[in-house]
């Protein structure tokens, strides 16, 4: 299974790069996609083998790492808003993104040097999370500012596709290294570090810090103040978009939970479980660009709503008493389509209405709203599952998601109207 993925995934980035000329995606976006891809290869290489490493080299239970990881994910959500504002305030999104990618790369170096204690590994996982929190908003702002408003969803689609290609390649490369050099985890860490360094190098050397839509710094206007950034929440169009993001993310169950639910419905063939992730990720990777193009052509709001409608259909499948393999695969493709139609498209919706000088702040707010919404929905879904059972929990969420979609229609349409003056 992994080998097949390897050859496919290896070919894909090249195809995209060649096609990107035809797609008319700005070179800066492709380069940013490359940065994310290299960094994701680096992170996922380590994430994949960390459980193995913990058990075989340190004699620790992998459950220890689960606890480590959960702690920092909440913190990373808040870092996003702050780093977004910092990028706008200093008018240096590229440098703030460099700090974020740099911190993760330093974490990898530390893993090579001092990765032989649980505490050390915990600190390094934390580094990676914080780095991710710092870089997300300024990087999305750079993508947005590098693209024309008409091509935003395609640009974000290209970036997200390359990003998930990296996440698929990372485990394959890690396994390949362990295949060549059994039990040499140090080799995986060294190669992971080199990928992280390459990512930073591409960012520093090949990404334009002041793309075409970036605000001019030499025209004498003062940098945006904190008041101006907070003022975004008084902008009618931004508020309704954030509201729509909140209601939709609060009613979306994380894919990890959906997999657990789906798995209860099918027979217990042990080999199936990892395939759930792979099929979804491949679908996401393959669909992100065409769906982005579609969104730019026929409208981002309908495409986004179709994405959530796909999620609704997957909820419906969870309500069925049993599930065959055919339906299961359809569900996973639907889930991949849902990610393709929502992940990048939401960012494109925000990029289109945010003022140029506050892109990073606004995008940071959006991702924070979505990640906090998802966090709450996961906790709520878990609690409902405990009290009402899986069926009851899915029913409640299906109804809530339908209501959220209905509520989001006017909100999203209003967010994309021309600004009302006066």
């Amino acid at each position, binding site marked *: 299974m992994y080998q097949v993925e390897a050859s496919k995934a290896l070919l894909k980035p090249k195809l995209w790069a060649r096609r990107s000329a035809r797609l008319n995606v700005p070179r800066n976006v492709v380069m940013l996609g490359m940065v994310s891809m290299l960094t994701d290869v680096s992170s996922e290489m380590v994430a994949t083998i960390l459980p193995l490493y913990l058990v075989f080299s340190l004699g620790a239970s992998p*459950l220890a*790492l689960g606890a480590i990881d959960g702690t920092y994910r909440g913190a990373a959500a808040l870092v996003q808003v702050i780093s977004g504002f910092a990028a706008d305030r200093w008018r240096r999104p590229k440098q703030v993104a460099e700090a974020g990618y740099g911190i993760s790369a330093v974490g990898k170096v530390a893993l090579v040097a001092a990765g032989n204690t649980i505490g050390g590994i915990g600190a390094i996982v934390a580094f990676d999370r914080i780095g991710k929190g710092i870089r997300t908003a300024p990087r999305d702002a750079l993508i947005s500012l590098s693209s024309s408003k008409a091509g935003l969803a395609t640009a974000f689609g290209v970036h997200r596709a390359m990003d998930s290609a990296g996440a698929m390649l990372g485990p394959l490369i890690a396994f390949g290294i362990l295949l060549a050099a059994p039990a*040499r985890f140090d080799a995986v860490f060294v190669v992971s570090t080199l990928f992280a360094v390459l990512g930073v190098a591409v960012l520093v*050397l090949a990404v334009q810090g002041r793309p075409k839509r970036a605000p001019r710094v030499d025209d004498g206007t003062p940098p945006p103040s904190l008041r101006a950034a907070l003022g975004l929440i008084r902008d009618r169009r931004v508020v309704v978009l954030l509201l729509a993001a909140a209601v939709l993310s609060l009613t979306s169950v994380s894919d990890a939970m959906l997999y*657990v639910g789906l798995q209860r419905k099918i027979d217990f063939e042990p080999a199936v479980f990892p395939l759930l992730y792979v099929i979804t990720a491949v679908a996401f990777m393959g669909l992100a660009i065409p769906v982005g193009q579609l969104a730019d052509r026929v409208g981002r709001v309908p495409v986004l709503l179709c994405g959530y409608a796909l999620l609704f259909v997957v909820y419906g499948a969870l309500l069925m008493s049993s599930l065959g393999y055919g339906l299961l695969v359809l569900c996973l493709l639907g889930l991949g389509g849902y990610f393709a139609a929502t992940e990048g498209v939401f960012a494109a919706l925000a990029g289109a209405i945010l003022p140029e000088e506050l892109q990073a702040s606004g995008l940071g707010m959006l991702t924070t709203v979505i990640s906090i919404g998802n966090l709450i929905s996961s906790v709520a879904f878990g609690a409902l599952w405990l009290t009402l059972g899986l069926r009851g929990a899915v029913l409640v969420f299906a109804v809530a998601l339908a209501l959220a979609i209905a509520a989001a229609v006017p909100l999203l349409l209003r967010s994309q109207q021309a600004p009302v003056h006066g």
Partner: protein
Amino acid sequence: MGSRNGKILAAIVVLCVLGAGAYIAYAALGPSETTTDTRPEAKAVLADSDVMVRAVDPDNPQLNGRVFEVDDGKVHHDGDLACERVYYAAGHGICMAIAPSGVDYEAKIFGPKMETEHTIRLTGLPSRARVSEDGRYGAMTVFVSGDSYLESSTAFSTRTYIVEMTSGRAIAQLEQFGVEKDGKPFDAVDFNFWGVTFDPKDSDRFFATLGSGDQHYLVEGSIKDREVKVLRDGIECPSLSPDGKWIAYKSRIGQSNRWHLRVLDVATLEDHAVAEERSIDDQAEWLDNETLAYSDGHNVYTVPADGSGEPELLVRDAASPVRLSDAS
């Protein structure tokens, strides 16, 4: 990107590729000890029981995981099985191991001459293995890395399979069993089962751990009814004594990932500590009705089950102890 930046980037790419290639080559071709001199070393072995162990030597891939039998203080090397976790009873064994591909895991179901009879693909890191006293059923637990490609979360969960040993087929997954607590159906998204132990007198009946949130329940179940019942909280990796009267288990210290070994009276549900004071992450094995064997990841130790005495080293450089009854 100016042509100067382009050149620097090209140079960095070349350096990284060469560096990675060189390091992997060094790691792949580097010295690998092929000696098996440092095989497990037995100390005092109880007179009335033989044990099977797996060798622990992470620096020596040729030796690490090899299965050895310890008989009256002598160590035999039997066959070529190398396992991350091993168990054996009544002519049927489970060996959870890294697959020949090097990147997957599999369970080898083996017979009395250590020959592989069936192979089952696994989907995660080997954790626990048990075979019922009559050799009819096996149980294995794997850690599944729930790490999602999309959100890069690093959540872990476990899966526990019941295997019919003669056919070598996984016939059930505990996660799909019905659960009853206080007479009512009980379900949650984060249910994880691990550490099965079979009733020595009735292999359909088993005990296991059910984890959900911060709770770790002792459950009692039936394979044919596909149902388990929650008995009490705070018990992980139960292990029934040969007479079925006691359950040795891991007791979590607070919310940490550290555990003390304790022993529970099945009839009264009262429990007591054993003399081992270190944290132990293992499913203990009963050598007889009075003695526990367990590994700290490096060596196998024994300790009296009644709380008296001291831990004693049984086999050096070994883990996964299995009592071999004289019959087999």
